[in-house]
């Protein structure tokens, strides 16, 4: 019947009867999509005590960026400090005290956010959204000790600095139209080598990590300096995409690799040259499907395990020690971990940011009082002493405030 047609023409002819337009008016409901989408986005609004459950176990190519989870609006009492019984009661546990929050200055710009910070807690990077005509270009800000140290204009659109080190050297990328990596130092911006790439982190030695290729579809890479050609990091066979997300001072690199057709899971490229997939922790006797790491510092990694069942996706939160290879499940009051400090303390987000210190004592950080309505808090930086954090609030009306928390 089709011997004389090549496959393509045959297929087109065969399927042609199915062509056509759907009849009737569409039934989509944009308001409902936004309400439900917002609900999925607000993962941080759960009360306490149970794992977060997502009803949709699907993600697009965003990989670990995709975060569809359902929180329970907080009706339960706020998490409070829950010291675990200690045998050596004589030595009081170290913990953050007298925490305060301030809005970082923005030179009159109402909407601004924090995108990173350094291990000393002195440097913070972010971007602003000046009022008026929006051409997609975002002026970047560098704060030092809570004051604006520099503002930077980079070409392209949706620019960001992703990280800054204790010397004030920052890295980030812009869309122009593909992703272009940039470095900043002493008021000067330079394009990083490597072509289309994203850069995620830089350590004090000036080593940067990220991924080469289109955003979300690149391969993990390391730049020995911001002027050096990047080198691809080794990945297991069958890897389709991957990214290096963070690096510690020893040079250990944390990232994810994504086998073809699957979602990514945690991967480590250690300073000694070895590399391996992060093991999958067990949660209540069930081995996790994936581990999604967030941050590495001084040999500590924090992140969350993912367990997929037929109808839902469950998360559990962990701290992992590289040298022992052991996972420690975090108490529910710790929230979803965002960053780990050199001393092993963790900052996460629940209803508000929470620091988990020695003995798994949790300390909730204050919210920003001038932000009206319900707020989400997103943490982008945590100092090595676990006493300074930077991030931003995200309100119902899509307002953002860049915030700096300080504790004693």
């Amino acid at each position: 019947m089709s011997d004389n047609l090549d496959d393509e023409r045959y297929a087109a002819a065969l399927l042609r009867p199915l062509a056509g337009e759907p009849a009737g008016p569409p039934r989509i409901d944009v308001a409902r999509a936004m309400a439900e989408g917002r609900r999925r986005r607000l993962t941080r609004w759960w009360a306490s005590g149970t794992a977060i459950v997502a009803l949709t176990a699907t993600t697009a190519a965003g990989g670990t960026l995709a975060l569809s989870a359902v929180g329970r609006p907080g009706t339960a009492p706020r998490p409070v400090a829950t010291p675990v019984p200690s045998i050596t009661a004589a030595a009081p546990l170290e913990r953050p005290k007298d925490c305060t929050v301030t809005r970082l200055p923005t030179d009159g710009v109402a909407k601004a956010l924090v995108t990173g910070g350094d291990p000393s807690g002195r440097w913070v990077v972010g971007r602003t959204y000046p009022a008026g005509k929006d051409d997609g270009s975002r002026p970047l800000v560098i704060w030092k000790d809570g004051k604006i140290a520099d503002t930077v204009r980079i070409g392209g659109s949706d620019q960001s600095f992703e990280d800054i080190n204790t010397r004030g050297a920052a890295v980030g990328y812009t869309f122009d139209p593909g992703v272009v990596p940039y470095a900043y130092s002493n008021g000067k911006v330079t394009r990083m080598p490597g072509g289309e790439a994203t850069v995620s982190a830089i350590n004090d030695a000036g080593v940067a990590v990220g991924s080469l290729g289109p955003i979300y579809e690149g391969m993990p890479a390391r730049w020995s300096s911001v002027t050096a050609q990047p080198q691809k990091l080794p990945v297991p066979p069958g890897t389709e995409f991957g990214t290096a997300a963070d690096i510690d001072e020893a040079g250990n690199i944390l990232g994810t690799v994504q086998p073809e057709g699957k979602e990514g899971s945690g991967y480590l490229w250690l300073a000694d040259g070895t590399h391996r997939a992060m093991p999958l922790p067990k949660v209540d006797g069930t081995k996790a499907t994936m581990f999604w790491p967030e941050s590495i510092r001084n040999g500590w990694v924090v992140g969350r395990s993912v367990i997929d069942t037929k109808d839902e996706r469950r998360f559990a939160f962990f701290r992992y020690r590289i040298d022992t290879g052991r996972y420690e499940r975090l108490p529910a009051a710790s929230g979803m971990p965002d960053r780990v400090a050199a001393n092993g303390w963790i900052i996460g987000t629940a209803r508000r940011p929470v620091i988990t210190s020695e003995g798994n004592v949790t300390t909730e950080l204050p919210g920003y009082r001038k932000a009206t309505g319900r707020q989400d808090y997103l943490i982008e930086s945590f100092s090595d002493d676990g006493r300074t954090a930077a991030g931003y609030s995200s309100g119902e009306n899509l307002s953002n405030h860049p915030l700096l928390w300080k504790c004693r």
Partner: protein
Amino acid sequence: MADGTDSEYVAYVHGRAAALRRTAYLLCGDEHQADDLVQEAITKLYARWSRISRVENLDGYVHAILVRTFLDEKRRGWWKVRLGAPPERPVPPAGQPDVEERAVLRAALSKVPPRQQAVLVLRFLCDQSVADVARALNCSEGTVKSQTAHGLAALRRILGNRIEIGSNQ
């Protein structure tokens, strides 16, 4: 996580709803299911709007969300659930050869593995390039080509000699 604005999202969705619905309809062959697919896709889009809105090829990205939603729903057997509750749609007039042909074709297509179905529909009903389909399905162009060949072979096998190409032209 709120870089993109709500008004941008609303404008975007209104601008693309018809195209998305058409693709969804061609993928699943049913208006009601197409609406459900688009609804789920735009919900996912909103949940990620602040990150996704800065992706360069936004249309391609949203399209990919839609296709993967279709595949995920197929995998989860959602279709079977839907079949239990017949939607109130007009019954096509019987006796017309093209209606019968469509029904036979649609039934055959639904027996082809979901990814191959998607490849066939996107390429030959939505006229998408191999590269676009590869992007939507998050696979290589070679995979799209092989899935096309496999899907077509499966369709031929299922249909046997029941459909004569061009009988309707």
